[in-house]
């Protein structure tokens, strides 16, 4: 087995070093190597989106990516999403619009929504549902998640205008 090596990653704006083997998945490096357990493993088969993180701002499934593939890129996990101890507007919208129950899917939902809203600041419901297609929720029935993303879009647009 090839020896583990120290991998330098930029995570939530900080330079971090983690010990990984070539085969280590990004999600395992985050959770086991760096203690960032906000990124969840729901299926490990690329289906559920619970492991979604942002790679240079784009949503990716961290169970379907090797840690070594993230070298040199900026990784954002849910731990780094709040701004200076204040919830991000997308997080706040999920709280206010009942976008979560057990919360297991929520980090992935929020980071996928972030990717969508940076590209499409004013999405209709069909666009929101299409963007969240790779994120499963076993609790909410999705409607309140769609409501949350729509509210977040409004909040972000108004924040921008202010």
């Amino acid at each position, binding site marked *: 087995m090839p020896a583990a090596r120290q991998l330098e990653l930029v995570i939530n704006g900080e330079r971090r070093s983690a010990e990984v083997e070539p085969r280590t998945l990004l999600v395992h490096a985050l959770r086991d190597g760096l203690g960032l357990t906000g990124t969840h493993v729901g299926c490990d088969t690329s289906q559920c989106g619970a492991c979604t993180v942002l790679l240079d701002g784009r949503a990716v499934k961290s169970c379907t*990516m090797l840690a070594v593939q993230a070298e040199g890129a900026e990784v954002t996990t849910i731990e780094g999403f709040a701004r200076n101890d204040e919830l991000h507007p997308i997080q706040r919208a999920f709280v206010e619009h009942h976008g979560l129950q057990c919360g297991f899917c929520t980090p992935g939902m929020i980071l996928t929504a972030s*990717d969508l809203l940076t590209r499409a600041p004013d999405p209709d419901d069909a666009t929101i549902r299409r963007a969240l297609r790779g994120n499963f929720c076993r609790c909410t029935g999705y409607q309140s998640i769609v409501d949350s993303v729509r509210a977040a879009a409004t909040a972000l647009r108004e924040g921008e205008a202010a």
Partner: protein
Amino acid sequence: MEHVRPSTLDEALEGLAAPDAKALAGGQSLLPVMKLRIVRPSVLVDIGRLELGGVHMSENELRLGALTTWNELESAQELERPALAALAECASGIGDLQVRNRGTLGGSLAHADPASDMPAVVLALGAQIVLRAASGERTVSAEEFFLGPFTTALGPAELITEVVFPLVEGSGSAYVKVEHPASGFALAGAAAVVRPDGGQSVALTGMGGQAFLLASDANPVDALPDAEIYGDRFAPVEYRRHLAGVVARRALDRARERMEGTGE
């Protein structure tokens, strides 16, 4: 297993000469099959950062780099024309947002999953696939490229570098699929091209061992009864043959509407 990240195409081809070496592009097909231990590479040659991307349009052809992602295809303004509309239409229906951010054109064609979408489009549009090995470059037509389930004309130490589409001015194209509701892969997918001289092509995917062109000069749908179509637990053969007709006709209609400027 080792991971190497070559910085040039030549280095990548050198790396692929090792026994059981595998190229890694977006990883959206390779990592799932590695997790299942179906593939156990000794070396992963990470081509993800080579300069093999990009949408390049010239007067009479479109060249797409192998590393062009689904997301780049679905949002490329150059492709917003009837003759090439099938490309973005197909890419936007693949997987989900996360998969489209990582998955690449070259990876999908090389993987050659018989239920994958894009093979039908490259066949219908008459694309040429450019392959590079240490010994040199060759070009094969899409028809010569797909040989069977997960089997292509690619040699073990060869890479797809780009895919070249002839531009037929005034033509229209479309991709229509009926997808498996859970996986999103095609139960039946059809890509169609309609040309101003009356010519039309249809290619089907999700039907059998590999995507294929329906051979007929007049109406490609007439060739359906003779096409080799497989049944499985998701779609028995009669049902799938029926679906094939439905998606083929819809794709032809949409391609014609685009050609005539009456569609979107």
